């Protein structure tokens, strides 16, 4: 194996992912199915929240993905800026709609959850608010990609936007916290003691295990989707290049 960067060659990338995709999508389907079915059918109701806890199997993975996909786009943009690998820019482009959908899912499930729990569809809680802002960033990012015709220019501009946007997204997170102290749960899943189960906020094992399976499922689904969509972008780009060259003659 030469170097990791050989996969930055579009052709190599397409070949490799073509081989990986069936496995990945199978695994994603399997773990999402297992996690969601387990969560939906075979976990007990919470004593306070009743059956609404079941929403957690969608809400939390989607929320985590929404944030992490933006981080992945940030890394991909940096790779494009520093090393100018086209695949990297296209992967960022391919990931954005997935991230936007994840954000919408987190927002929608949260809103539906909020109705019975907080008595309102929407409250200007900092976590919720920063998700809304994140959604706006996704929208702007995708709109910029769509608006620019030249691929390399679009890649350059969107990656700078992603960079600057990340800084401002972080800033707004702090600003929002300062602005309003909220209703939303703390991040207990990611806390060290979560699985050990010795804090008050812990998510009990009954919920945690299927939750982790769901998270794994969402991650796998994301990877599969990004591979597929990046392939598509690569092909579309090559097609544009071929057509343009054809016209040249």
């Amino acid at each position, binding site marked *: 194996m030469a170097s990791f960067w050989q996969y*930055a*060659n*579009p*052709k190599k990338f397409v070949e490799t992912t073509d081989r990986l995709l069936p496995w990945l999508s199978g695994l994603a389907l399997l773990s999402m199915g297992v996690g969601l079915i387990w969560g939906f059918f075979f976990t007990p109701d919470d004593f306070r929240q009743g059956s609404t806890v079941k929403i957690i199997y969608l809400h939390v993975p989607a929320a985590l993905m929404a944030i992490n996909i933006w981080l992945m786009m940030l890394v991909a943009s940096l790779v494009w800026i520093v090393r100018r*690998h*086209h695949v990297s820019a296209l992967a960022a482009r391919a990931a954005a709609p997935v991230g936007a959908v994840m954000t919408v899912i987190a927002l929608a499930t949260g809103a539906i959850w909020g109705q019975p729990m907080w008595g309102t569809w929407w409250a200007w809680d900092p976590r919720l608010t920063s998700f809304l802002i994140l959604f706006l960033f996704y929208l702007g990012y995708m709109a910029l990609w769509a608006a620019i*015709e*030249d*691929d*390399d220019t679009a890649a350059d501009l969107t990656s700078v936007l992603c960079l600057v946007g990340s800084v401002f997204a972080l800033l707004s997170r702090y600003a929002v916290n300062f602005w309003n102290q909220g209703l939303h749960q703390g991040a207990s899943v990611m806390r060290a003691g979560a699985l050990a189960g010795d804090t008050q906020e812990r998510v009990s094992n009954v919920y945690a295990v299927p939750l982790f399976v769901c998270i794994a499922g969402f991650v796998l689904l994301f990877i599969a989707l990004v591979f597929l969509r990046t392939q598509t972008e*690569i092909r579309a*780009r*090559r097609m*544009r*290049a*071929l057509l*343009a*060259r*054809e016209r*040249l*003659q």
Partner: protein
Amino acid sequence: MELKVTDLSVARGGVPVLEGVSFTLRAGEALVLRGPNGVGKTTLLRSVAGLQPPLSGQVGLDRESMAYAGHADGIKATLSVRENLDFWADVFATDRVGKALAAFELDGLADRHAGNLSAGQKRRLGLARMVVTGRPVWVLDEPTVSLDVDAVAMFAWAVRAHLRDGGMALIATHIDLGLDEARVLNLGPFRARAPEPDDFDGAFL
């Protein structure tokens, strides 16, 4: 001082349009680029002027010594002719506004708003800007569009004066400029050929 362009390849919209263009321009020389519509003259000039990076090849001088004038003139309609030139004189830190006005017979129009000029008068103002820059290499894209015969002669005269001062000029045009001493480079033969079809590498081509 000389402008040495070696083996330049340029692309527009991701598609290579010209390949392997080389020429040398010495102080006091002018080079006229010719070629059919769409061959890539504008693209080449923008690359030489440093506005877009070439695919490969070198441009011997950096952009600091070039003055570029493209299809658009950068004229502000709400400023007067003199104010337009004054601005560029300040930016380039020169004091040649008077000379420029005289060279293109704009004295009479100097206090007119540039928006109220006719097409040819606007173009004369755009060309007067080149005199103002004081840069040694003039890169001109179809400079004589909309100019009448007298104005074309003014232009030729201004270019000659510039060359006499040791300047250089690189001009793309379709029509006769009255600059008989200028060398002519036909870009037709440098048209980029399509690469092998299944050469599917990093650049998608």
